[in-house]
């Protein structure tokens, strides 16, 4: 079912069914965005849950959403960034988490360049990571990324170029053989 671009308002009678339809249509997208931002399946899972519960609450209050896909992307990115900044994350997330290898599920590549790229994306700042992931994997345009991240196009370009420079540096330092 395509909800994109539709002014969405659901009647309360079939609220749960409609919500489930939306959930099934967009759950993969939302989890992917959260995963590309956090690089941790468990945290991404929690964020995806929060986003869908937020959506349910909004529908429950009979508020209108003009672009559902856009709303889901924006909310997921914002929730991920808020989570990164949150007091609870700073207290309870272990610093060692950042040194742990990215699981096989998130790093399914055979090519070493891709393996290194995905592993080292984790070391970038969250905004750089999101901008690069959306641009590289989802092939989004700069203006789309700017819209989803609620920042200007020039800011997106800066995040991408700085992130790319940092990535190249890390990858070069880590594996000299990556250059051929």
């Amino acid at each position, binding site marked *: 079912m395509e909800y994109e671009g539709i002014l969405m308002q659901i009647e309360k009678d079939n609220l749960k069914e409609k919500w489930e339809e939306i959930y099934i249509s967009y759950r993969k997208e939302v989890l992917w965005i959260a995963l590309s931002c956090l690089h941790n399946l468990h945290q991404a899972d929690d964020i995806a*849950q929060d986003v869908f519960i937020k959506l349910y609450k909004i529908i429950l209050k009979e508020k209108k959403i003009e672009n559902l896909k856009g709303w889901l992307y924006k909310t997921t990115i914002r929730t991920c960034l808020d989570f990164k900044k949150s007091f609870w994350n700073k207290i309870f997330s272990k610093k060692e988490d950042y040194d742990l290898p990215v699981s096989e599920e998130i790093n399914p590549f055979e090519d070493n360049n891709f393996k290194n790229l995905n592993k080292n994306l984790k070391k970038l700042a969250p905004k750089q990571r999101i901008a690069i992931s959306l641009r590289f*994997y989802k092939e989004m345009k700069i203006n789309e990324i700017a819209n989803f991240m609620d920042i200007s196009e020039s800011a997106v370009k800066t995040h991408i170029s700085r992130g*790319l420079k940092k990535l190249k540096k890390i990858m070069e330092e880590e594996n000299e053989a990556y250059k051929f």
Partner: protein
Amino acid sequence: MKHINFDDYLDYKLMEKPLPCSCDVCQKKIKLWEEEREKFKKFEGNLFFKKQEKMILEKLGGKFFNLKPVIAFAFSLILIFGILIFSNIKKSNKIENFDLEYSKLQAFYEKPILGDLEACSIFFENNLEKEDI
């Protein structure tokens, strides 16, 4: 002409920079990388979705309650009460000691009070006795 490497591919995909070479070898490389890129793009993690779906439906069936602030509030209350109770215990100990000291003082003052001269003579006598020994 220089063949493309992964840096060039990243620049091409992220910054829209043109590729330095378009020979067959480089085209094959790009094709391989594009296939690899699709792998992460199509990442699904089905196991997690099943778990997630179940958990969300459980949450929706129950309550929208964020336990974190409640736990934080309860913890801070316990901490505050803990400090208060601990300080009260210390204070009550002090009061008990004070009562004890006061009762001793009271007992002392209830005794017949000696005159100054008499007190001095007793003091000197005691001291002389100590020196003699």
